[in-house]
């Protein structure tokens, strides 16, 4: 199996191939908050080259620049030379951690996940608190065998402001009459926050735990409502475990399938103008752009308006790349920019497909005292199905 925590030296040829054309600077969401060349993707590639060539030292300044990246993948998609920018930056973060120059918050995140197997450091019993929100406790039979396994992830399980995503997903699954279950308190963090932090060495054990637990319940299809979990299950787990033994769907993909089969039906006319924000880890990282749009277009009364930069051109909302933990001010400013984009297209509701996007964009809406509403795709579907969570 490929090693998930790459050494910086593995990227020597990648950074050499960067011919500094500057295409990556254009829409890099964080560069203009730094301004200096070292804060651009091109600059980060040059700094990695400098580290490898002994022209720069591993230090706090390098760490500051490497952690001011949202890992949104715009530069990766944009790079004509095919430089694996985000992998190189993740390797640089691993390098910084190994040398002890990472940010203190990284140790906190690592500690929480290491001790309690979740991003928030809460007890494992708290992982299923969201079930109470459904008002239908008997619907969720933790630990039973089932073909479909819903993996809500840490944010939708523990954050009171994102639990609606898990609740809405479970109600939709139930209303659709599918045979489904959850891991409950056996669910561990997927490991994504550690992959993004530079602590990727710890992820193998987490992947093995989750995969084994899913296999034990006989899960054939894993459904995530979190874009980060989806990316980790589909892109990173296969690098650790050769054959997962199950398929992985983002909930929007499953719902689109149900729509095609005529099983997903909407009963409510919503009469709202909606724009869709592509989560970086669902869009650019894994190529899932259309299923959420198709679902929105099928809901009666929704007028779907696109943001000026959409699909692979989407600007990160600041909710990813652990930017919200390492640089909360920049994360909030990015969300405010996104909100301004939504205002320009006169959207009443921003819909996304990731609880982390929901949290950060909700923070921007609160800070701006803006009337725009922020909903996850599962919440607006539940609303259109007239389910109780909304």
């Amino acid at each position: 199996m490929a090693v998930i925590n790459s050494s910086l030296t593995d990227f020597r040829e990648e950074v050499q191939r960067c011919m500094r054309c500057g295409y990556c600077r254009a829409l890099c969401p964080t560069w203009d908050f730094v301004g200096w060349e070292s804060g651009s993707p091109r600059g980060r590639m040059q700094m990695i080259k400098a580290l490898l060539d002994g022209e720069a030292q591993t230090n706090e300044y390098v760490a500051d620049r490497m952690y001011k990246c949202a890992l949104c993948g715009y530069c990766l998609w944009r790079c004509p030379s095919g430089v694996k920018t985000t992998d190189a930056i993740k390797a640089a973060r691993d390098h910084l951690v190994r040398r002890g120059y990472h940010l203190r918050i990284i140790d906190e995140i690592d500690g929480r996940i290491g001790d309690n197997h979740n991003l928030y450091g809460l007890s494992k019993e708290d992982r299923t608190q969201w079930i109470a929100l459904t008002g239908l406790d008997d619907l969720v039979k933790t630990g039973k065998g089932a073909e479909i396994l819903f993996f809500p992830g840490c944010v939708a399980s523990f954050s009171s402001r994102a639990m609606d995503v898990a609740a809405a997903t479970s109600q939709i699954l139930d209303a659709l009459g599918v045979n489904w279950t959850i891991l409950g308190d056996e669910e561990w963090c997927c490991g994504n926050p550690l992959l993004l932090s530079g602590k990727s060495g710890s992820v193998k054990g987490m992947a093995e735990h989750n995969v084994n637990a899913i296999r034990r319940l006989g899960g054939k299809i894993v459904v995530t409502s979190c874009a980060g979990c989806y990316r980790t299950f589909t892109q990173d787990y296969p690098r650790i475990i050769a054959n997962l033994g199950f398929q992985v769907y983002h909930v929007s993909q499953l719902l689109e399938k149900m729509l095609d089969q005529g099983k997903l039906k909407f009963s409510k006319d919503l009469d709202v103008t909606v724009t869709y924000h592509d989560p970086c880890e669902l869009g650019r990282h894994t190529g899932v752009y259309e299923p959420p749009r198709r679902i929105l277009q099928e809901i009666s009364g929704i007028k779907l308006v696109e943001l000026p930069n959409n699909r692979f051109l989407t600007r990160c909302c600041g909710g990813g790349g652990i930017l919200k933990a390492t640089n909360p001010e920049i994360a909030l400013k990015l969300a405010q920019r996104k909100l301004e984009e939504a205002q320009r297209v006169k959207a009443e509701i921003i819909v996304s497909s990731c609880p982390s996007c929901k949290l950060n964009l909700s923070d921007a809406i609160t800070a701006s005292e803006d009337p725009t509403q922020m909903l996850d795709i599962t919440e607006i579907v539940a609303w259109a199905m007239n389910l109780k969570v909304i």
Partner: protein
Amino acid sequence: MAYGRVGEGILKELEGIVGSEGVSIRPEELYCYSRDSTLFAFKPDVVVRPKSTEQVAAILRLANRDRVPVTPRGAGTSAAGSPLPVMGGILLDMSAMNLILSVDLENQTVAVEAGVVCDTLNEELKPYDFFFPPDPASSPACTIGGMVNTNAAGNRTIKYGPTRNYVLWLEVVLPTGEIVQTGSKTLKSVSDYDLTRLMVGSEGSLGVVTKVGLKIVPLPESYATASLVYDSVGALARAAARIRLAGIVPEMLEFMDRKTTKVAFEYAGVKGLPEGNLLLVDCGGSKEAVSVMLKKCVDLGEQEKPMHMEQTTDTAYREKLIMARKAALPALARLRPSTVLEDCTLPLSKLPEAAAKVEEIPRRLNVEGLDLGNFGHIGDGNMHPTFTFDERIEEQRAAFFWGLDILYKEIVLPLGGSLTGEHGIGLIRAPYIELEHGSTAVELMRNLKRLFDPNLILNPGKGKGGPYPLRRE
């Protein structure tokens, strides 16, 4: 007289001018600012990010007083070495001066600070159905200040001409610290020596451009695009010549050779065309006009028997084709670790001959690992032969420089061409400028440089005002 060093005293004065947040001597920054897209590397002593013309003026007065070299830089996308601080000193990063100051639709002009990015300006103008036509491949990143200093041109030059045609006035800080405004805000003026045009293309050697007044023009109503794929570059060049001779002026008349087309299409996701040399014809105007114009272009192109021809009016597909063409240079970096492009121009009649000779260069050099891709603005005689190699291997690096000699001394100049169409002399072409212009003209340029910059502090060591430290004789 030697250049002054950037010591503690100067650093404190610089911080006094722009604030400590606008000055860096961090080794990581100095490294990042030591490169553009050539293979040269020169570190500055300090990087300074001014936010106003007055700050630029104060920095230049200080530098001139102590004879400290100053190298202006926009986005660092130069393919000539122009923004590299050959003599160290102050690197003036102009990207923080990035305000669009005014959009005056009534007078069809805009005023911008030098650090505004080309595509950002056009995004701003798009809702008004106007645009600033020069379209260098680096348009997603390059700044208007950089475009002025290189007289950048790009894909649409055949119809609209280079940056020079759109610059009405400039605010410039002279190396001695005075602020001057050249030109006029009106669309026509001959009330001065043409200082504006002197500044355009001067590669940051005569003054630091801080603000720019530009003409803008209405966007075409619609586009139609054709891709013609030829087996040989010669046939492609002859097809382009037929279109030019017929008096048709398309929006773009661009080409990429076989190697370049393959990697550029791979990047942009263009599928379904056979491998070959691509002639891209893009026509703009009213719907009726573009249809007629494109048909004529295609008819003429087909006389040279392309392997494949297709037409499109699909906006998304057209954008993909243009994206592929614009990304040709960095896409070639997929092939080898180092990619360096050239910028020669040729009389239109000599293009087929030149293209064939350029294609022969790798075979003549006969060094394993060194190859060449070719692409460019064939409609205006501008080719970008691009060497792909590994700069870390001495034999390949030496062969690259030998390849430059062949390109310029044996092909471009004997055929009546010019060293550079839109990138400038910089460092890379400095050894050849006398061969094109003669020693008297070069001395005149040096004297002109001294008139503006008596202490030779501004972007020294390269460009039209030399001296040229990279001379290899």
